């Protein structure tokens, strides 16, 4: 196993309330310095709720946002996003909203040709051949090529989006909520397609989602994000069957499941912390039943637990559920 993607102390700080002169009014730490690595051929799931920084992280990885600090390494080389034609061949991105990621005034053929032409300088004949191959792989009919995006349903549009990413021929795909805009029956089609493509083309996935059940069906390893930090990371079955961090446990207990009676898993009035005024120490402590004085003094660091799971918590839950 080789590490294909390595993040070291990657962080992103957004200024809020820019002024003409002088410093901005406030800073939002969307992503706290975090380090992660992804092995070749693996699917790393990234779970978190809205505002936890998962999309910011994804956009940094594909060079759409410059990080505030830290480094991104692909296959041991630092990611240089100065030249879009270089990093576009290494790492690609599948968007959440399939329709709005396709230009409404271009045909599918024009959209599909862009990466082939600009990233790989292919000739017209080669492009046609490659598009035919990719369309076969994602189960799309070639007659779609001369239509416009608005003629497609969400599921078809997402297949087209995936086809475009495959055209770039990158080995690493960042999938940012790729199925959350789709209906469940279509969602299952797309998830299965992604699994097949991964085997067929030897891809590595970073699968970002707010839906634990979806992440569980696709991931080898999972990282749980809360308020811009990784609070738990480890093998997917370990993390989901025996959550160590109280937040992971809360997430798992909140997902509605057929056959489990309704209960509010936490106090009814708790709110997420304010990103402009984050709490000291552990960001989760105001919602946490196990919080102690120690949690308020200093944020816990990721530490390895007995079974290979890393948890950032002073009071990790014991293994039994």
């Amino acid at each position: 196993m080789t590490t294909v993607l390595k993040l070291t102390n990657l962080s992103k700080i957004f200024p809020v309330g820019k002024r003409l002169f002088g410093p901005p009014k406030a800073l939002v730490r969307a992503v706290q310095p975090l380090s992660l690595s992804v092995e070749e051929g693996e699917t790393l799931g990234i779970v978190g709720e809205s505002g936890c920084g998962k999309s910011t992280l994804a956009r940094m990885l594909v060079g759409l946002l410059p990080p505030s600090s830290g480094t991104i390494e692909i296959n041991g080389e630092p990611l240089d996003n100065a030249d879009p034609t270089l990093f576009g061949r290494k790492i690609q991105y599948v968007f959440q909203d399939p329709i709005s990621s396709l230009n409404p005034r271009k045909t599918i053929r024009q959209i599909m040709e862009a990466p082939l032409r600009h990233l790989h300088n292919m000739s017209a004949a080669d492009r046609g051949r490659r598009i035919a191959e990719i369309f076969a792989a994602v189960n799309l009919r070639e007659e779609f090529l001369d239509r416009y995006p608005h003629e497609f349903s969400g599921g078809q549009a997402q297949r087209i989006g995936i086809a475009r990413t495959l055209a770039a021929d990158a080995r690493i795909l960042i999938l940012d909520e790729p199925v959350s805009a789709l209906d469940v029956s279509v969602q299952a089609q797309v998830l299965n397609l992604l699994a097949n493509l991964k085997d067929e083309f030897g891809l590595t996935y970073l699968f970002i989602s707010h839906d634990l059940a979806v992440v569980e069906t696709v991931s080898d390893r999972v990282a749980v994000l809360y308020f811009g930090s990784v609070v738990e990371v480890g093998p997917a079955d370990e993390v989901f069957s025996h959550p160590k961090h109280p937040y992971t446990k809360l997430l798992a207990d909140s997902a509605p499941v057929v056959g489990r009676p309704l209960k509010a898993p936490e106090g009814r009035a708790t709110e997420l912390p304010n990103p402009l005024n984050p709490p000291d120490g552990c960001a989760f402590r105001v919602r946490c039943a196990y919080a102690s004085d120690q949690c308020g003094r200093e944020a816990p660091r990721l530490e390895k637990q007995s079974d290979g799971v890393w948890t950032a918590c002073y009071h990790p839950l014991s293994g039994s559920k």
Partner: protein
Amino acid sequence: MMAFPKLLARNRLALGGLIVMGLVVVLALITPLLPLADPDVTNTANRFKRPFSEGALLGTDHLGRDLLSRLLWGTRLSLAVGFTAAIAAATLGAAIGIIAGYYGGRIDNIIMRGVDMLMAFPYILLALAIVAALGPGLMNALIAVAAVNIPFFARNIRGITVGIAHKEFIDAARLSGMTDARIILTEVLPNVVPVIVIAISTTIGWMILETAGLSFLGLGSQPPQADLGSMLGEARSALITNPHTSVVPGAMILIIVMAINLLGDGVRDALDPRLKSGALSRPMPTTMVKRTMPVPEAKAETLLALRGLKTQFQVKDRVYKAVGGVDLQVNPGECLGLIGESGSGKSVAALSIMGLVASPPGVITGGAVYYRGEDLIDAPYEKLRSLRGNRIAYIFQDPLATLHPLYTVGDQLIEAVRAHHPFNKTEARAHAIDLLKSVRIPNAEQRVDSYPHEMSGGMRQRVGIAMALANDPEIIIADEPTTALDVTVQAQILSLLDDLRRERGLAIIFITHDFGVVAQVCDRVAVMYAGRIVEEGPTRTILNAPAHPYTARLMACVPELGQGRRELAAIQGLPPVVDKMPKGCAFAERCNKASDACRQANIELVRHGANSLVRCISPETSALEASE
């Protein structure tokens, strides 16, 4: 794009403008071919001839020049200058706007402040200054008019570009290895062109006027060359004695500008997607009702019952049967789940109950909705209004979109209460605080004065629920109330709704696409597919042993926590489009049990087991199993 001429022709005034403008342009184009007198030859012996005199159809001016000839040549020149100025201003303005909007940040700031400075001068002063600096002459007047109009285009196009530059397809293009210049030309520009065309069509008349104004002041075309403005200027001294010399060019300016403006408005209406989708046609206060079939009878005494409800959207020559005959009923204190995928008609069915489907294009074409035995479908508007939010209330998916951003949540709650009860302000405010407490918002006394944007998604949805509860309704229709929320917040909201229902004996129609949610809060559940109910019954029966193949397979493809990595049992294909419904079972195309019988005739919703109904001739479970 094919529809554009049709859309334009539907607007009578625009069509008139188009015809008049076409005539003027044709006249201007063929002027050199017409047997006209030379426009610039003076003949003072024949000065100030009246119109319709011999040899001069429109008379002559103060130098005895033929007015008809001068008018046509002048029109030709004025149109040419006006169009050129418009194209020049649009090109430069759009280029500035696109660059400012695309790059944003400092570049945007510098460019737009420059444009603002240009706008700070009164336009005529600016034009005069430009002409004064460059010297009089038609070419310089053209430059002045174009320059004066650049800020208008730049600001307009910048606004549109900012919206487009943040779209995901721009990011996608960047990831496809495109450079900024290429993205601007091939991704941004095609999306901006319609706006540029609209802006040109609405300003070109104005530019012709401005050019005429400069020529009138003697700064545009120089004698003896005629354009409409200079003709007016020369006729000014004879305005009282020989009015026809001013009336002729004046009338032409009027005709041109009127025609262009009417045409421009028509072009704008036809191109603007917002106007095309009916933003100009105000929806009626209740959904239109056109029932052709006899109205079904109310069956037993129930709180709310839908009988054979049919709602369609009639868009041009297509009819979308969003709801194709739905029967449902809710009893007091009961929670009925309505589950289905997008496009299954679940929301339209729910909105039809209170006549809230936008008309046009929505039409209720059949069936009835009985609230305590009274049909709501043909109820007068006043009756519906007194029930809306009072006896039957709605909770919508996105509380940020349903709460007014400029009023505090307290004001909005007070308004909801006072719409149906004669409370005074203080009573209503106290009631609003009670409501916020009842949905467990902490510090209700302070939160009542918050604006919606100051609250989190979960808190806003609590306000949405408080608003629904404001008048102590009997029925709440909750349309995906937790779909936009995070799971931890969703769990809180679901348990809140469940508690409220039990405390107050509310009946809830809970619309969702999530089986987990249905399992946790609903007593009964109805599954919708392609506008009809395919299965209905007690939640436990349906979730444990679904009888309709669609329900069974839909449940199978939902990932559930705790089952590890695996392949999902996806349903192949897509739901049918509701303007082209198949003859028999709508699910037959995707069903692996489908036989010829499924496709031949309509399948009825029949009793299956003790408490369930199913619309299938070969259900997954036997009637006996379904009764357990």
